[in-house]
C-alpha cells in the first residue's frame, strides 16, 4: 500500500477501485488500480471478500466430507478438485481403484474442462462487448450439465468422487448422451471461430496485449492454458499422469506468443483435445466396481502428502498433513487462480484500463478459488 501511494507524483494520477462488485471481475474481487489518465501504472488485488475458511473447515471434517467443500473452491472444475483429494487419500492408503473408476473420472474431468472453457469463452466475449457469445456458450454448456445431472445428481457441484471410487455408477444413458454431446459440440465449435476468433475487433484487442514472458510465467507460477500460452510446459496430465491419462493420446497445447490471443487459442484447442480424450475412452469403459470397499472411518497414516491434478485453470494441488486421525491436521490447497492473479499486476503495467478487462478475462479467474 505504501509504495502504491508513493507512486503518485503527478496531478493526473488517481486510484480507481475496480470491484468488489464489478461485473467484469466475475465475482467479488477488488482491484485498486493506480492510473495515469487511461494508462494503468500498477494495481493491487484485495482478496478476502468471499473468504469462507474452507481450509479450516476441512480440518474439522473427515476425508469423505472434505470432498463437497472442494466443490466450492473452483466451482467450474469441481470434478478435478474432488479428484485431487480422492487421489491423495487413495495414494496415502495404498488403495488401487479399478480401471472403470479411472475411466469415469477421466471422462468426467474432461467434460468439466469443456464446460468450464465454454463458460470462459462466453464470459470472455461478453467482457469484450460481444454479448452473443454468452448465449451461445451457455447453450452448449447446457448439454454437458445435463450429462452431469443425470449421472451425478448435481449440475454445477457434483460431489461425484469419493475416496475409493465414485459415488454412483454411471447412468445407463451416459455413453449415449456423451456421444450426442460431442457430435453437437463438433458442429458448434466452428461457429465460435466465426463469431469471435476471426472478429477484427476481438483480434485488435487480444493480439499483443497482456504479454507474459515464459520466465515470468514460471516465476509467478502461472499454470494451465494461461501458462502454456507463454510457452511454459506445465500440463500435469502429461508430466505426472494420473487416472487414465497415461492410456490416452493427446497433445499438450503450447503457444509462444505470450499474449491474450495465445491464451484464447490454447483454450479453443483444448476443446478438441478434451473431446478426443473422451472419444478414446467412452466406448471402452471397462467393467468393474465403481467403488472400492473402504473402511467406514478413513484414517490416513501419519505423514505429509501432496497430490496435484490439472484443473481447468491450471495446477491444483492438495497438501495434507495427517497425524493419524480421521481428519487432517492441516490441509492446504494450491489453487491455480491465486497464482494467475499474482501475475496480473505485472501484465497490465503500461496498458490501458480497457485492456485490463481483456487481460483479466483471458486469465479466466474464478474468485472463490482465490479466496477459499
Amino acid at each position, binding site marked *: 500500500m505504501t509504495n502504491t501511494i508513493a507512486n503518485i507524483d503527478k496531478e493526473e494520477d488517481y486510484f480507481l477501485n475496480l470491484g468488489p462488485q464489478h461485473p467484469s471481475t466475475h465475482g467479488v474481487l477488488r482491484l485498486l488500480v493506480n492510473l495515469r489518465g487511461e494508462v494503468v501504472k500498477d494495481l493491487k488485488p484485495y482478496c478476502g471478500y468471499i473468504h469462507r475458511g474452507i481450509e479450516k473447515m476441512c480440518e474439522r*471434517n473427515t476425508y*469423505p*466430507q472434505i*470432498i*463437497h*467443500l472442494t466443490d466450492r473452491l473452483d466451482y467450474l472444475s469441481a470434478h478435478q478438485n474432488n479428484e485431487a483429494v480422492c487421489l491423495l487419500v487413495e495414494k496415502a492408503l495404498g488403495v488401487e481403484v479399478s480401471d472403470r473408476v479411472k475411466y469415469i473420472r477421466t471422462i468426467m474431468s474432461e467434460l468439466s474442462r469443456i464446460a468450464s472453457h465454454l463458460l470462459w469463452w462466453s464470459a470472455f466475449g461478453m467482457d469484450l462487448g460481444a454479448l*452473443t457469445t454468452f448465449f451461445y456458450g451457455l*447453450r452448449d454448456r*447446457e448439454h454437458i450439465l*445435463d450429462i452431469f*445431472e*443425470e*449421472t*451425478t*445428481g*448435481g449440475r454445477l*457441484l457434483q*460431489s461425484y468422487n469419493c475416496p475409493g471410487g465414485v*459415488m*454412483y455408477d454411471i*447412468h445407463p444413458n451416459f455413453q449415449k448422451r456423451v456421444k450426442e454431446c460431442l457430435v453437437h459440440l463438433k458442429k458448434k465449435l466452428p*461457429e465460435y471461430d*466465426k*463469431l*469471435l476468433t*476471426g*472478429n*477484427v*475487433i476481438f*483480434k485488435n484487442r487480444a493480439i499483443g496485449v497482456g504479454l507474459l514472458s515464459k520466465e515470468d510465467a514460471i516465476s509467478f507460477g502461472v499454470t494451465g492454458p494461461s501458462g502454456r500460452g507463454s510457452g511454459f510446459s506445465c500440463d500435469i496430465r502429461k508430466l505426472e499422469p494420473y487416472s487414465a491419462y497415461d492410456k490416452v493420446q493427446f497433445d499438450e497445447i503450447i503457444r509462444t506468443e505470450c499474449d491474450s490471443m495465445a491464451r484464447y487459442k490454447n483454450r479453443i484447442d483444448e476443446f478438441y483435445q478434451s473431446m478426443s480424450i473422451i472419444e478414446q475412452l467412452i466406448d471402452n469403459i471397462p467393467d468393474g466396481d465403481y467403488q472400492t470397499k473402504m473402511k467406514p472411518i478413513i484414517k490416513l497414516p501419519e505423514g505429509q502428502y501432496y497430490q496435484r491434478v490439472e484443473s481447468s485453470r491450471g495446477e491444483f494441488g492438495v497438501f495434507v498433513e495427517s497425524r493419524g486421525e480421521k481428519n487432517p491436521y492441516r490441509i492446504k490447497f494450491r489453487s491455480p487462480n491465486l497464482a494467475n492473479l499474482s501475475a496480473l499486476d505485472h501484465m497490465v503495467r503500461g496498458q490501458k484500463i480497457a485492456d485490463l478487462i481483456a487481460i483479466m478475462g483471458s486469465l479466466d479467474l474464478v474468485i472463490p478459488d482465490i479466496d477459499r
Partner: protein
Amino acid sequence: MNAIVEYIKEVLGGVKSLLTGLSVTVKYFFSPGEIVTQEYPENRATLKMFDRFRGNVYMIHNEQNQHTCTGCGICEMNCPNGSIEVISKTIVVDDKKKKALDKHIYRMGMCTFCGLCVKSCPSKSLAFGQEFENSVYNRSDLTRILNKPNSTIAIKQ
C-alpha cells in the same frame, strides 16, 4: 499510395470478419430450429428432473405410515454441516427396551446436498426428492422433521 491500399484492405478485411460473425447470428435469427429456452415456470407441469437429482432429503414411508429408520445416527455423523439431528427414544417391545427414532430433524438451510447421508444410511430409509423450489418466507420453515407424525418403524420380514 501503398499505404492507402493497405488501409482499404484492412478496412475491407475487418468488414468481412464482422459479416462472417453476423452470418452466424442471422442464420439463427431466421431458423430458430433448436430453441433451448425453457419457459419456467410455465412449463412446471412437464418439467421433470433427472431421477438422480439431489433435491430435498426425505424419509421413505410406506402406505402404513412406516419407515425403516432405526435412529442409529450414522447420517448425523456423516453430515459435514451438522444439518441432521437424530433424536431417539426408548420403546418397550415384548418386554424389551429398544432404541427407536423419535425425531429426525433436517435443517435444509444448512444442507449442501452432498449426498453422504443418503449414501451412508444402513437401512436405506433416506432418499433425495425431486423438489427444487425450496424458497420459503420464514427461515424456520426450512427446519423439517422427516419422520411423519405417528409413524412407526417397519417390521422386517
